[in-house]
């Protein structure tokens, strides 16, 4: 088990390899479909994303009616492949160094990871409670006009568990498993 602490850097990311189990501590920004589309359309993000990690997640958030404080009650990853058209450009244009999601991403993103020193971390899909427990605090919310699941939530996390499935050296566990399962399937059909 490796540990990675904020502030994050390309150098840290380049040391990681496919299969590494990592605990992340520090700051994460949620961003899913609508955020990626906006960023890709060239709309300036409300926060500086350089050297940050984007988490593909639409959390369940409750707001305390009195204190107005936000509380995350469920926060697992959403399917990443929907961001495939945008992700590599978002790496290039905004300097993010990590993406957390589930299900993996394709060739364009893998090339982006290599070119821009970025890593794709796979969180455990559906494990919304285990992952929400690792979130200490909601620091801020941006672009709430997109609706709660689609907004950018700035989260502080401790020991957030992920697995590197696409590294900055051109390796993808998803491509490997797809190829091997395809071989197996051919024999079984």
């Amino acid at each position, binding site marked *: 088990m490796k540990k990675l602490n904020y502030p994050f850097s390309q150098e840290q990311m380049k040391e990681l390899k496919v299969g590494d189990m990592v605990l992340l501590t520090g700051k994460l920004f949620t961003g899913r479909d609508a955020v990626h589309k906006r960023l890709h359309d060239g709309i300036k993000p409300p926060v500086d994303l350089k050297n940050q990690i984007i988490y593909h997640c639409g959390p369940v958030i409750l707001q305390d009616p009195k204190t107005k404080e936000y509380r995350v009650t469920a926060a697992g990853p959403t399917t990443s492949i929907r961001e495939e058209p945008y992700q590599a450009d978002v790496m290039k244009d905004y300097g993010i160094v990590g993406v957390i999601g589930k299900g993996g991403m394709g060739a364009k993103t893998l090339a982006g990871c290599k070119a821009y020193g970025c890593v794709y971390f*796979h969180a*455990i899909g*559906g494990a*919304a*409670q285990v992952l929400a*427990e690792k979130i200490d605090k909601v620091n801020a919310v941006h672009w709430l006009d997109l609706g709660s699941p689609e907004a950018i939530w700035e989260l502080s996390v401790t020991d957030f568990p992920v697995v590197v499935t696409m590294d900055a050296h051109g390796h993808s*566990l998803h491509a490997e498993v797809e190829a091997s399962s395809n071989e*197996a399937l051919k024999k079984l059909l």
Partner: protein
Amino acid sequence: MALKQNKKKDKKLLVKKKPIKKTVVKKSLTKSKLNTDKLLDDSLLELIRVTSAELPNDVQKVILEALEREEKNTTAAYAMNIIKANIDLAKKKSQPLCQDTGTVIFYVTHPVGLNQTKFSKLIKKAVVAATKKGYLRQNSVDSLTGENSGLNVGPGHPAIHFHEHAKKSIEVKLMLKGGGCENVGAQYSLPNTALGAGRDLDGVRKVILDAVFKAQGKGCGPGVLGVCIGGDRGAGYIESKEQLFRKLDDKNKIKSLSDLEVEIVETSNKLGIGPMGFGGKTTLLGCKISALNRLPASFFVSISYMCWAYRRQGIELGSSSTIKKWLY
């Protein structure tokens, strides 16, 4: 909707103020009716809470078996351990297992004469209340404007299916089906030349395996398949979802389908896709198949994929709309 109901209640309250003698009967009737509605509302809300936070025993059992099968210290075992911890934590905290609380799908089986309009209104009311309590995420988006009402109610949401039966009881079943797994569902039209799949059970087997391969880890596997052979495109998909209401340890009464269900699970687990697509021994936890008649010209195979966070529950209502029995 809530406003309308309040108005109705106000009217009834006004009626109660009429002269004593006339209202004695009316008053008690109104009161019991309101109480029943309130109790039904409570029952539906509890159904939503439990469905969102707790996995049924039959599902937990196969997940634990899958955990045992994976080799220690692999990413697959790591994923299954986190899944197990998540199941326990969600139940303890009474919070959603998965943040994607999915399409909210109700199946109501009822005796002749149930007022479906009224029942639907009460279901919607419970869905709104469950959303406010955080049992459900704000998950319903206007497809044209992209707006999220934040209430989970709108055209097609929640999905409510009514079925009449000859018994006196009312059963309400609920499934919360997340978007990740819904997106990897598939419908094939046989024959399929690319897969060499003809219009027979072997052809059906081939397209189902293709769907499992294409899903990889994107549907939050290990998953469970609901499959319908035949029907039109609409009926096929609905039936494939209804298959997911079957208990995992039941046995298909049709021998050929029972055999195919077992074979699909065994074969899929040889593909090595594994939990989350990390590679591993368990790709599928179960497969349930049924058949509807088809047109001579059509041969559809409709496949619904359910993630490991297989949220389905059901209740039988008692005489005063309280929960008499849990169905899973």
